[in-house]
Each structure stands twice: as structure tokens, then as C-alpha cells.
């Protein structure tokens, strides 16, 4: 991993169109601003992983799944 040291207000440029700026530092929290093209998705890592894990769980399914789903009464 490339490691760079930045001060508050300083930025990192990635490629032509991604810019990451340290907006503020407070205790053990760092506020980061990200400028990126719209097709680049930016997510908190743990949330991105959580969505993937939930998808894996949701797709596992249950053997009798079709019987568990409630039927709409007619």
C-alpha cells in the first residue's frame, strides 16, 4: 500500500479525476472529502462489505423457500 502523509486541508490526486482532501481532524476521526466522477462509487468500506455479505446470505435461500413466503389472499 502506498502511504502518504497529509496535513489538514491537503489533498491527494489519483489519476486525472479523483481528488481526496483531508477536510478536518478531530481526535481519532478524520473527515475526508472525495471528488470523483459519477461512475466511481464511493462507500464506507464496512457498509460496502455488509451489503455484499447480506446479498450472499439472501441468495443462500432455504430449501422450502417457496412454501415459507406468504401468499397474498385472494
Amino acid at each position, binding site marked *: 500500500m502506498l502511504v502518504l502523509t497529509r496535513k489538514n486541508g491537503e489533498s491527494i490526486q489519483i489519476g486525472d479525476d479523483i481528488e481526496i482532501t483531508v477536510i478536518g481532524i478531530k481526535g481519532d476521526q478524520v473527515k475526508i472529502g472525495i471528488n470523483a466522477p*459519477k*461512475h*466511481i*462509487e*464511493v*462507500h*464506507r468500506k464496512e*457498509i*460496502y462489505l*455488509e*451489503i*455484499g*455479505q*447480506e*446479498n*450472499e*446470505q*439472501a*441468495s443462500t*435461500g*432455504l430449501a*422450502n*423457500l*417457496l412454501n*415459507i*413466503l*406468504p*401468499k*397474498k*389472499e*385472494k
Partner: protein
Amino acid sequence: MSISTKYHGEMEVAQEEIWHFDSGIPGFLNEKTFVLLPLEDNPLFQILQSTENKNLAFVLTNPFYFNKNYDFKIDEGTLEQLSLQNEKDVAAMVIVTVKDPFEKSTANLQAPVIFNLSNQKAKQMILTQTEYKTREFIFQQLPASKG
């Protein structure tokens, strides 16, 4: 084309029925083509079936049916990726993690699946500024049948 499905056996699907998830789905980034299959006698749920992988299928539902207050904004990146221009072309569904008994099932309101009905592009959109979680209990009280 003919596909193998998890819940519907072998079946024929037309090219124009295929939904294109160009960036895959989190956890399954290589899965880019799916079909939406109805469940017989059960209009509340549909199956999102991978066309490539027989065993990959999700249960989807219309979140607004179970939670009338569900609300989110489609971000600009998603609008661009799906080439969404007209509100009437949008459909949104959520993935259900089914548990037995069904009341313990949850829906992923934090990452709805957005469909562009005009071009068959779709994407699971992760909401960034939201209170919704990946496991929301929305099935504990089923809405009364509307006949």
C-alpha cells in the same frame, strides 16, 4: 435462450427480458445478467435469477407495499449509470433475506435494486446518507389483502 433456474427449472427467456447489471451486485461482481421471474400465485414476491449461475437467485419484493413510508433519492451516479432520464421509467425493489418463520425475514432497505424499464439496465444502489439498514423487519405485519 435457455437457462437453468433455482426455483423454476429449465426455462426459455427472451434477450429483451434480461436485466443488465453492468457492475454486478456487491458480493457477486461477476454476475451481470439476471431475469425477473414471477412466483405463481404470489404477486408480492419475484425471483431475481442469474442467467449464468443456476444457484444464484434472490427474492425481491416491492418495499412500498410493506413500508409505505420508505423513501430514498436516486443518486446522480446511478442516474448516469442506468441512463435514467424519466421518472416513469424507474422501478425499485428490495432484496429479502428469507427466514423461517417468514415474520423473521428481513429486507435490505439500505440497498434497493433500481431498474430502468426503458433500457433493461439495473443496479443495486447503496444509499449513503440513510437510516435504513440491510436487515429491516418489514414483514411482521402483512398488509391486509386488497382483494
